[in-house]
């Protein structure tokens, strides 16, 4: 992966992703934070495309940038205006230090490990078929369980929100 375009795209997407993620931290308005989050999700989707993960990229856009973010906005709308700040708590500085340490540790581990990279690989052509086949063959059990999981989440969410008393 040494084409210039890809490299440039990688750097731009990285900057967008991480930058908008940082914006979530910095912004005072929680709606802006959600918007930054969406941008960050989209940036990640872009990175997926670089990684030739087309299906995941699409799923990312649909589920994260779409559904989850909308859900968050929706939840925010249910709460009144005064509850919509994006202030920090007492862990601002300790949290920063801790996050830096954890991130650094993981990054160092990632860099020092001798990953056995594929030779001259061009990545996947199209992934949806592969994923589909995997889901009904090797990982059919998780697939079914995930279905139950979604059902449970749905039932649970409804049950919790329903006012029955």
């Amino acid at each position: 992966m040494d084409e210039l375009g890809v490299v440039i795209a990688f750097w731009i997407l990285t900057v967008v992703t991480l930058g908008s993620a940082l914006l979530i931290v910095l912004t005072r308005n929680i709606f802006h934070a959600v918007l930054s989050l969406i941008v960050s999700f989209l940036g990640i989707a872009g990175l997926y495309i670089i990684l030739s993960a087309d299906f995941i990229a699409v799923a990312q856009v649909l589920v994260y940038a779409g559904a989850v973010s909308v859900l968050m906005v929706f939840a925010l709308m249910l709460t009144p205006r005064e509850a919509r700040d994006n202030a920090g708590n007492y862990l601002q500085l300790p949290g920063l230090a801790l996050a830096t340490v954890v991130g650094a540790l993981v990054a160092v581990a990632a860099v020092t490990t001798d990953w056995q990279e594929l030779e001259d690989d061009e990545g996947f052509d199209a992934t949806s078929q592969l994923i589909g086949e995997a889901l009904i063959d090797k990982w059919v059990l998780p697939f079914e369980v995930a279905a139950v999981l979604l059902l449970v989440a749905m039932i649970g969410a409804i049950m919790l929100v329903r006012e029955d008393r």
Partner: protein
Amino acid sequence: MYLSDIPEEAVWAILAAPFVALALNALITRRWPLLSGLLTVLAIAVSFALSLWALDTSWDRDGVDLGFESHELFAIGPLVVNVGATVDGLTAIMLVVVSGVSLLVQIYSLAYMKGDDGFSRYFAFMSLFTASMIGLVLADSLIVLYAFWELVGLSSFLLIGFWFQRPAAAAAAKKAFLVTRLGDLGFLAAILLIWSETETFDIAEITTIALAGSIATGTLAMFLLGIFAGAVGKSAQFPLHVWLPDAMEGPTPVSALIHAATMVVAGVYLVARLFPIFQTDDNIMAVVAGIGGFTALFAATIALVQTDIKRVLAYSTISQIGYMMLALGSGAFVAAIFHLFTHAFFKALLFLGAGSVNHAAGTFDMREMGGLRRIMPITYVTFVIGGLSLAGMVPLAGFFSKDEILGAAYDDNEIWFAVALVTVGLTAFYTFRAIFMTFGGHYRGAATAPGGHSAHLHESPLLMTLPLIVLAVPAIIAGFINFPSEDLKHLLEGALPEGVEEHEFDFSWPIAGASLAMAAGGILVAWLLYGGQRVGLTTKPAFIRPVLTLLENRYYIDRVYEDFLVGFLFYRVGGGALELFDRYVVDGAVNGTAWIAGQAGEWGRRVQSGQLQTYGAVAFTGLAVMLIVYVAAVNP
């Protein structure tokens, strides 16, 4: 001489008779006091009779041990405890003294203790004492001897504290037990030491081994010192003499029997029993002589100023035992036992006399007596006989025995001879000071005795005077047993192993004369100060006052022991510090650990603040630490 040899069973019966009396007293006859008393008297009479038989047998055998077998009591591996009876000259003499004096004292007590609530208990204790004392002299092994040694201590404790409602009596009993036990520690340690050397407790075997020289001199010296410590405690020698004067809180017959005639001389007996070993070490002998000589003088000086008649006699006892120790230390084995023998009679006589006086006057304070010679003639006469014997007037018993000691001291060490000689004078002085104060002059006592009873001055009943009269006889003539006849010497030397030499006594006129002169001088001074209506020095010169204060306070030794050493240093400072240590350091560490754990829990609870992100932060901190530590430990 007259009888066939005594069988072993009869010897055991000497011991058993008073024990039987004890058991019956304790279990059955509690409700019938008089029966208890008679039973005790009877039992001791049996013992006395058998003791005479033993003496007779021993005489036939020249005082050599009859050689009864030892019987195994229990055995733990190499530790074998045997019980057996030694009957040699020494034992025989002691048996007779113990059971004889005891018999008379019991008879006396029948009257003296009449009407006391604890009459039955008294005789039970007395039986216990007599039995233990007999056991002590019969014992053929150190451990059995030690056992009876402790038992006589116990009976002494019980009898001193007989009137336990009196705080002074209770305190004196405890003091007596503890102080003697302090000495006993040495005894016990000595037993441990000698056992680890010889693996036996048998006195004869130990003696043989020691004489063979197979025990290192240092070890043997430690052993002897330990034994002597026991003797010092029991025989109230300096510095463990403090218990004996206080022990006068017990009933007077008890003082006569236990604290004058028998138990207190157990120390002398013990040293005498081990005399063959003692005489191998000159240094130890010097220690024995030194302690004895010093105590003789020291106690006599205190006796000079005592106002309580029993305390005078008590210090006198300490002093006289000092003589016996001096004799032993000087190598005069026979002289010591001779003095023990005579002393038993005249001192018991004196004590019983004092009891008789008390019976009438209701007090022991001589300042409240006087003029009793007219009211109590028998008591008076017998008391004077005892006093003369004690003072060492010829030809009474005390003179001869004391003379032998003086002779031995003279041959051994002149300093102790001088001391002993001075003490003769002091002895005569305090004895006759007591006689004059008690019997001379006019009655000075209050109309009422302490306790509100009117003092009914009268001569004591026959049961009390009879023992006085009986005792007066040996107080006069007992000296002749060894002088000039040497019968006692014959009997006692048989008890010594072959080759052990004891001091050969040669009568010497100068020594006898000096002794007599000192005694007469003492009596004269006493008459000058206390004779007739005189009550001592009316004007006291300045130089003598501090001396008197010092003597009246018994050299402050009791105070130093009780208040400073034990009360302050040991109990308050040492014990107090240890108690604080226990409470705040040892237990404090325990409670502190619990407190720290509790505080840690409390602190940890506060961290558990309910704030969600704190939990996350803790979790990730933990994760980071785990990762860092893991990597650092594995070091990939």
